[in-house]
């Protein structure tokens, strides 16, 4: 048999590499801007399109799906071809994948600042873009499996298993978390409501971290680290064990984002147990990576790619130890909703994802351009300024998290809240916010230096778009004569491997999701909880558009420190008409679940116009455009109809009179404001937002009045 000559496609790798660097700089720059807005609200340039609530999702989407996403595809397209000893299945599909993914990112850049959002964290993009993501993901899958099928290497190396698990799990997560009913081209309502919606979202959110930020990077680590250190992975057996354990366990851990909420207690306990167990497979990966460098530590001193790898793996180890610790209820009680979580995710994102990406770029770009790196000194500078940036980012955020978390829980000897004003705790941590933005800027500066270094490297070399390689074609196996063990056989059958991975992730998914989604007794209903009025529903949609959920939670945990501060703790039955749920994950401002009736309409009007009028020192931006903009009521009927389809009990034909009801209620609020000498037309957006805020958490009070 003659060896076959073929060519690796380096051009697609180069394209994804450029996209990684460009979107990385943009995403991190937006991150620095939103970080500064947290102590200088005026940094929104008095513009609704650049205000925190709308731009924070742009930052998270840009760094996760644009920076990390493109880096994943760069790493996979480079390593998969070489591990399979084959060119990518189809150049056309590679191109469609590349441009399709960039189109998704551009759509996000346009729609998120416009306030077009589902409000599901890391899944904010609206339904037409969700469909586009599905198509592009399928294209990627066909291209990947096509390459695996036409391979010249019989056995599938562990890196590719991680890629397969990534593909199949992200597909499942994306589809289930995007189940929504379109109301218009730019608006939809989630199929699930309240607790169920929260469970689905955090099953998705946590596993997006697992299968987008972790498994593809572990796969890349298993390919690139042996290449960089020029030695095989420390233990291949450990890689098999930790692969199966990781994908099995990760899927169960999502609800630890919902501890002390109205999620059924058994689901909370279950996810805590599995979160603790998650340390083992996570550290299995880290240890396997670090021990690959045994006997090669001298290389780490000279080779900047290995330096990035070592710090990246260490950050992974730190983040995956801290994650399980944060899932312990006692720790979570303090850390959740605070900047501790922001520190935690950034150790992972800046350290693990960022540094591994930089290592791969520094290793890969000189190779595909057949040259040397332009400047080792610049790369070394990048390493040190990046490391400093992580420290300057994470330490102030930990400090801020502990400080605020503890202050919010502190009582006086008389049993009163020591800091009854939420704002007082915020003002205490403003210096930490300033330092954090310095840390972020240092990290970004390093990335810009890297971009220049890689550009100069590319200019001094010449891209080898098609890299020649040779390998023997695969011989046909005689199945009858095979005496191979089970796992060895599995390693030869990619489709079977896909099914096996799918089964493993579906076990946890079903046990954890199905009871809450299907058993009614898990969500006790409350008779006095009624659907939102049309005006409140419209106000809620403005609240979603402005991204208020990025700073304000709507769920009160059953702690005395919270019930004293915010009011009665949340009940599952209060959220049954909330499509989507708006519990939030971070309290930069106070919880709003019992906001209704706390203040008068005029207080809200003045507060939204300029928060500092009512709360001096507040870091909330002005929402003065709500006073000027007319509420769009053209979609009210469609919204009511969509809600009816989802089971919200509006009377039949209510959609036809919804706008009349809306106008009546709006006039009432405008008249009420007029009594306080505030002249505003009843058709402005602010009226709807006030209506919604005044409704929040009040139904349960009506229940009490009725019982009396």
């Amino acid at each position, binding site marked *: 048999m003659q060896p076959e000559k073929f060519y690796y496609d380096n051009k697609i790798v180069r394209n994804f590499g450029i996209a990684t660097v460009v979107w990385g700089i943009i995403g991190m720059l937006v991150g620095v801007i939103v970080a500064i807005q947290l102590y200088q609200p005026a940094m929104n340039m008095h513009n609704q399109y650049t205000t925190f609530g709308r731009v924070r999702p742009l930052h998270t989407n840009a760094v996760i799906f644009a920076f990390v996403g493109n880096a994943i595809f760069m790493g996979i397209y480079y390593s998969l071809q070489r591990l399979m000893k084959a060119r990518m299945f189809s150049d056309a599909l590679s191109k469609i994948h590349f441009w399709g993914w960039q189109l998704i990112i551009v759509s996000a850049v346009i729609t998120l600042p416009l306030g077009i959002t589902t409000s599901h964290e890391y899944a904010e993009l609206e339904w037409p873009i969700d469909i586009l993501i599905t198509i592009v993901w399928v294209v990627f899958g066909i291209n990947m499996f096509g390459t695996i099928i036409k391979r010249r290497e019989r056995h599938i190396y562990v890196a590719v298993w991680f890629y397969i698990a990534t593909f199949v799990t992200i597909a499942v997560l994306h589809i289930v978390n995007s189940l929504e009913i379109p109301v218009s081209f730019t608006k939809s309502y989630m199929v699930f409501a309240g607790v169920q919606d929260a469970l689905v979202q955090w099953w998705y959110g946590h596993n997006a971290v697992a299968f987008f930020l972790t498994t593809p990077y572990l796969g890349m680590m298993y390919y690139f680290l*042996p290449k960089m250190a*020029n030695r095989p992975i420390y233990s291949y057996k450990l890689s098999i064990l930790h692969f199966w354990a990781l994908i099995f366990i990760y899927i169960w851990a999502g609800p630890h984002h919902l501890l002390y909420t109205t999620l059924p207690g058994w689901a909370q*306990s279950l996810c805590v147990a599995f979160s603790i167990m998650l340390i083992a497979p996570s550290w299995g990966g880290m240890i396997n990576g670090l021990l690959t460098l045994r006997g090669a530590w001298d290389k780490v001193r000279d080779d900047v790619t290995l330096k990035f790898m070592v710090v990246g793996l260490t950050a992974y180890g730190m983040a995956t130890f801290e994650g399980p610790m944060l899932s312990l209820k006692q720790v979570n009680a303090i850390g959740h909703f605070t900047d501790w979580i922001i520190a935690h995710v950034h150790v992972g994102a800046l350290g693990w994802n960022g540094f591994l990406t930089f290592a791969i770029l520094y290793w890969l770009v000189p190779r595909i351009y057949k040259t040397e790196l332009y400047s080792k000194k610049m790369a070394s500078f990048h390493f040190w300024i990046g490391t400093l940036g992580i420290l300057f980012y994470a330490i102030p955020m930990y400090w801020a998290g502990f400080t605020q978390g503890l202050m919010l829980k502190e009582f006086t000897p008389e049993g009163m809240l020591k800091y009854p004003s939420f704002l007082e705790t915020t003002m205490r941590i403003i210096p930490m916010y300033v330092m954090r933005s310095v840390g972020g800027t240092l990290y970004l500066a390093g990335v810009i230096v890297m971009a220049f270094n890689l550009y100069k490297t590319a200019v001094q070399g010449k891209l080898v778009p098609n*890299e020649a390689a040779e390998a023997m074609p695969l011989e046909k196996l005689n199945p009858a004569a095979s005496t191979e063990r089970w796992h060895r056989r599995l390693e030869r059958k990619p489709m079977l491997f896909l099914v096996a991975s799918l089964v493993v992730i579906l076990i946890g998914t079903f046990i954890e999701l199905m009871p809450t989604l299907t058993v009614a007794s898990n969500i006790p209903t409350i008779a006095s909880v009624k659907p939102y009025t049309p005006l409140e529903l419209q106000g809620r949609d403005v609240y979603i558009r402005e991204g208020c959920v990025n700073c304000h939670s709507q769920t009160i945990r059953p702690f005395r420190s919270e019930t004293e501060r915010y009011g009665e703790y949340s009940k599952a039955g209060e959220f049954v008409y909330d499509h989507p749920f708006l519990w939030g994950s971070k309290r930069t401002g106070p919880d709003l679940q019992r906001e209704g009736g706390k203040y008068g309409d005029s207080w809200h009007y003045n507060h939204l116009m300029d928060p500092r009028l009512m709360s001096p020192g507040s870091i909330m931006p002005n929402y003065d455009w709500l006073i000027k903009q007319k509420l769009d009521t053209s979609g009210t009927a469609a919204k009511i109809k969509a809600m009816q389809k989802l089971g919200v009990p509006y009377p039949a034909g209510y959609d036809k009179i919804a706008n009349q009801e809306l106008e009546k209620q709006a006039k009432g609020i405008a008249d009420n404001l007029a009594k306080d000498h505030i002249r505003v037309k009843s058709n402005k957006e602010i009226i709807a937002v006030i209506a919604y805020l005044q409704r929040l958490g009040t139904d349960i009070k009506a229940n009490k009045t009725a019982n009396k």
Partner: protein
Amino acid sequence: MFRQFTEHIDGNQVYLLFSMFIFLVFFIVVAILLLRLRKQHIDYMSDIPLNDCAEETPNLLKS
């Protein structure tokens, strides 16, 4: 620390125990399969990334 589990899962222990049991079985099965793998095969698999058929390139960062 673990009092929360024993206190708050009345009537729901079955979920926890059943889930743990599934994982235990799964883990044991994978571990047994691993122990049965041949060293020769493990060595072959570990070396795959280092034999990628492309022209050998020196560590360009070090030159």
